[in-house]
Each structure stands twice: as C-alpha cells, then as structure tokens.
C-alpha cells in the first residue's frame, strides 16, 4: 500500500511539474474560459433587433405611417430607407443593404376599414436568425394593429426568388391578449442563460483535451514505454495523470463561476456545494472520456483535432445554444452521448433555477453511470503491456 501511494505521488509530482513548466498551454487553459466568457457576453449577441429595413409604402397615408411607426417602435426594425415598390425592396435585400423589406399596398387604408388589410414582409432567408426574429416581430406588431399580414420568406440561396409564406390571421374582431411571465430569468439576460451552459462546455472540452494530450504526448515521445516498465499499475498511472488535471479544471471552474457571478451579475440561485460536487463528477467523466479518446488516437495532433471536433459537437448538440427538443432523433441521440448535455441541465438547474437534487436526479444518475463506464473502459485500455 505504501508503495502504491509512493508510485501515485511520484506520477502526480511529475505531471504537476510538466503542467507548470508548459506555461503556454497552462496560460491557454486558464485564459480560455475568460476569453470565451467575454466573447459570448460582448461580441456574440443572440438577440436579433434593429434589423435594417427598407419600406415601400404605396399607400402613403395615416394608417400606413402608423404601421411603420409601430414596427420601428418595436425596436426590431430600423427603417433605413423608403423605396418605390416591391422590386426595389428585393433589390435592396439582394445588395445586402437591408435584411427586411416591408411592402404596403396602395389600398392599405381602405382595406383596414374593411378589416382585411395586408402588408407584405420580405425577409432575407439566408440569415435564419433574422427570419425568425423578423417574422415574429412583424406578426406581433401586425396583430396588435389588428390586421392581416402576409409574410413571404425569400430564399436568397436558391433560384426561386420568393417563397409564399403563410398568411397570419390577425383576428381583428377578436383581439387576444396573451400575457407571458418568464420564470428564473425575467430580464431574459443572455448571460444568465449562457454562463451555466458555457461552464459545462468549457469544462468538457478542457477535460477531454487535457486528458487525451497528457497520455498521447508520452506515447508519441516514447516516454510511455519507459514508464510502463516501472512497477506502476495501470490504475495508479490513471489516478496520477488525472489528479493534477482535475485540480487545473477545478481552477477553471472557479474562474468561470466567479467571473459569471461577480462580473456578469449572473445570479447563483442554488446550493454552491451541490454544484461543486456535481461539477467534480462531471469533470471526472470528461477526463475519463479524454483518456478513452487517448487510446484510439496516435498523435497529439489527432488528439487536438478530435478535441476541436468535439467542441463543435458540444456547441451544437448539447443544448448550449440550440434547444435539443426539435432535433431529429439521431442527432439528439448523438448529443446524449456527450456528458455536457446532462451537465448543462444540471448547471442551469442549480445556478439559474436554484433547484435541488430531487429535480435533476436522472441527469445526475446518467453522469454517474457515464463516469463509471468511461473510467472502467480507460483502465482496461491502460494495460500493463504494450500490445
């Protein structure tokens, strides 16, 4: 037993020295979360508003002007220019000067009287975020103006100039008021949504990358054989390699969470201790997955490429930005293989909602099983022989 502890501590010491000595990597590991947080906070805004808009007002009366004012007042549309007709609107979108065009037909005012007024909203379909934001904003405005609105989406990518969209029934005679109350994130602040998810993604990518590279580097340099021939058992090598990386990832975790709370004012609603323990579980599952990856890749370059690929999959499939609900079954299943998928829900549950274990026990259970399986598999892969 004493010898076992000696061996583990020898490996931990060695790995720690190596991590501290490789300061460019260390700096990257510690600065990446900070960089990503600031990027998401200040550079990448997920709210689409102030869309540059061209208006072809062929009615030119009080009613049509009121409609345009309402659109502008919504904050979603910035009227950049007034043009003559529909063709000019499309030309503008083609040239990229505006992203949305509003066409108000000449009989707009008279038809409002009759209750079946229509306006045409032309959207630049090459930007799907703008389409969905513009579509919903325009219909909301139109609805409140109690009129019927035809929305046509324009698919600028294909040869077809215009696609006929659905027409919205404004229900002018029966105005329905819906009232919405947003729970947990009343200000709909992006950072409150992003920070828990980003925590999960960053920890995921770092644990996998670190674990994979730590193993592959030695194999690539031929150090592995020299260490394999020592009496260190596979499990001891595994623990010795994981421990310093675990510590490093915990530091990362602290950086992200503290930055989120104190810089971005993200409220931490739940129990910090529960969050700490479950984070540890998640980090272990990530390191295990990294070790598993290290058994299939041959070089550091491959390990890094695979980590990059994994990072992209994490961004897309885990529910960080895009909700997992509408994904096709196959894609959703692929996302279910990534531990971050579960931890994002856990992190949002604890940080944003402030709920306890009883609300997320399924995700926790899956992570526990996941960790046991990947660690189990990687211990098997860490063998006492070369073949």
């Amino acid at each position, binding site marked *: 037993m004493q010898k076992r502890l000696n061996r583990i501590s*020898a490996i931990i010491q*060695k790995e720690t020295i*190596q991590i501290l000595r490789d300061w460019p990597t260390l700096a990257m590991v510690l600065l990446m979360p900070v960089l990503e947080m600031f990027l998401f906070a200040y550079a990448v805004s997920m709210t689409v508003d102030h869309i540059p808009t061209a208006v072809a007002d062929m009615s030119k009366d009080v009613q049509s002007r009121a409609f345009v004012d309402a659109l502008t007042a919504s904050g979603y549309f910035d009227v950049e220019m007034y043009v003559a007709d529909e063709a000019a609107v499309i030309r503008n979108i083609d040239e990229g000067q505006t992203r949305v065009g509003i066409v108000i037909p000449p009989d707009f005012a008279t038809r409002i009287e009759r209750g079946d007024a229509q306006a045409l909203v032309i959207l630049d379909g090459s930007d799907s975020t703008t389409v969905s934001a513009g579509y919903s904003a325009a219909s909301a405005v139109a609805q409140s103006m109690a009129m019927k609105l035809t929305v046509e989406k324009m698919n600028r990518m294909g040869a077809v100039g215009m696609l006929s969209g659905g027409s919205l029934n404004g229900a002018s005679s029966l105005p329905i008021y819906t009232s919405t109350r947003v729970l947990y994130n009343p200000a709909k602040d992006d950072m409150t949504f992003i920070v828990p998810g980003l925590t999960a993604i960053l920890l995921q990518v770092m644990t996998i990358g670190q674990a994979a590279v730590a193993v592959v580097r030695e194999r690539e340099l*031929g150090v592995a*054989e020299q260490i394999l*021939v020592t009496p260190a058992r596979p499990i001891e090598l595994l623990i010795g390699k994981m421990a310093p990386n675990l510590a490093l990832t915990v530091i990362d975790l602290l950086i992200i969470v503290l930055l989120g709370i104190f810089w971005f004012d993200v409220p931490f609603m739940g129990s910090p201790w529960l969050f700490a323990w479950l984070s540890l579980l998640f980090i272990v599952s990530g390191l295990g997955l990294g070790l598993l990856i290290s058994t299939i890749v041959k070089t550091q370059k491959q390990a890094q490429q695979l980590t990059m690929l994994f990072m992209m999959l994490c961004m897309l499939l885990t529910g960080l930005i895009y909700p997992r609900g509408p994904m096709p079954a196959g894609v959703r299943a692929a996302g279910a293989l990534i531990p971050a998928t579960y931890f994002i829900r856990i992190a949002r549950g604890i940080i944003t909602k402030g709920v306890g274990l009883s609300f997320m026990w399924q995700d926790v259970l899956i992570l526990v099983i996941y960790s046991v399986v990947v660690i189990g598999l990687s211990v098997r892969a860490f063998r*006492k022989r070369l073949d």
Partner: protein
Amino acid sequence: MNENVTIFTRDLVKRFKTKSGAVTAVDGVTLQVRRGETYGLIGPDGAGKTTTTRVILGLLERSGGESRILGYDSMRDTYAIRERVGYIAQQFALPADLTVMENMRFFANIQSVSRKDQRERIPELLEFAGLSAFTKRLAGRLSGGMKKKLALACSLVHEPDVVMLDEPTLGVDPVSRREFWGMLGDLRTEKGLTIFFCTPYMDEAERCNWVGLMYEGQLIAHDSPETIKQMVPGRLLEFTPSNFVPAWRLVPDLEGVLEVQTYGVMLHVFVDDVGKRRREIETALAAQGITCEGMREIEPRMEEAFISLIRKQRREE
C-alpha cells in the same frame, strides 16, 4: 533451474497479428544469461531482438514457450520483474521537460526508493554518469550521449540485479559510446550487475561474455565471442584489388575459396590454405590484369563471423 541463471527462455515465441496475417517475430528462442554476465543479443534490424527483450520483460504478451527473469515468470510476475530490473527502451525517452534531478527523483519515487537511500544514491549515480554539473538542466536539452547516461542512471536508481538495454548506444557518438561502455564495465566489476543488451553493432559484441546471434527471429548461434569467431570456415585473407568488380566476380569461383565478403574497397576471402591460395588468387587476378594490394591474413572479427553464419543459415533454408 540453476541459481546462477538470471535470464532464461525456452522455445520463446512471439507472433504478431497484422492485416496480412500472423508474423512470427520471435521463433523459438532458447537462451540463458548467468549472474554477473554481460550478454549481447546481436543481429540486424528486424531480427527480433527488441521483441525478445520486451517479451522477457513482460512488456509484450508471450505467444509460446517460457521466459523468466530471476525466477519470475515474464507474464505472471510482471510487476515483481519491474521492481528488480532496469530497462532502457530503444526508442526510449525520459520526460524531456523534467530536469536531470527531477528525472532521477521520479524514477526513484516510482520505485519506492526511500528518501535516505535517494540522498546517498542519486548523487553517486549522477557523479558516476558525469552529470553532477547538470542536475538542473532539462533532460530534453542534454546531448544524445548524456541522455543515454541519464537513462542508465535512472534505470539503476532502484539497484536492480539485472539491466536490459535495447540498443543503448544507438545514435551516440563514438566517444560517448566508449564512456557508456566504460560505465557498464565498472558496474559489472563493482556490483556484479547482470547486463543484457541488444545491438546491431558487431564491435560491441566483443565486450560480452556471451553472444547470441539473432537472425529472422531465431538464435542462429550463441557462445562466447571467441568461439563464435572460430565458427567461420578456414582462414581469412584481406586485399585491395585494383579493379574491384571483376575481382569480386572472379575470386569466389577459384579453388579453395570458401567465402567472399566485401569490406569497403577491400575483399575478405575465406580460404582453406592461406599460403597456397594466396599465390593462386594473385596469379588468377594478374591474368586479368588486376593487381592485389596489401594482401595479408587477418583474424576474423565478429562482423565476418556473423555475415558468414547468416549466409550459412540462408543456404540451409
């Protein structure tokens, strides 16, 4: 098994599965290394030396036969072996981002060498390896020869009874090579260390008590270097012909010539009778207008013996 036998194999077989079928890298090797002996496993690249060493150490799965070190079975008692044997792998590398001292400490700690022993042993080994002045230098910044010496020092830090060195002087300059062998010689005489090493360099075989010649997975000869050198047929003549290619074509067909090997611009000719054949060769070549410079009889070295034995092996197959 004899108390004095340190490394032992019998009919050792190692097969690798490849895409194109099974390859037998080690094909029935039987060898014994006695305590305190220096054993050289000599052979060309790809002969199976490294594979044999790795199987004996339990680094590779054994496909057949027996192998033991200090009585411990390679497969069953792998960790007992790893606590008692020092090993330098061929493509060895010590962690390059650790200093000389940190490397020594790492291998000492992982072998559970006590602090007290470390304090005595590490400076002693570093002194012995001529690395005392470089304790704070990163292993990656050492010269090739110094790296090998550090590797040797690290592999000795737990005071093993046996060291197994796989081509320890590969890529090392002649001076460092000589120093390295000097170190090993001292270890053998002072501590009675058993040394097993693989090398493709025939001159290093001269440093052994016992040599195993390995070729295509088999041990084609194993004996003392003196005996192996005497295994070649006849006596050896060396000369430089004035016109190399015609001479090299002509000489093997002459009577009494057993074997011809090339050696740079010289020919090495094994003959049954030196005095008689020397004149005959000179006459035959002179008839073709070729003169022979520096014709003399030399002692066969390991290199000639080895080439001769491999040719014999090929003829038999």
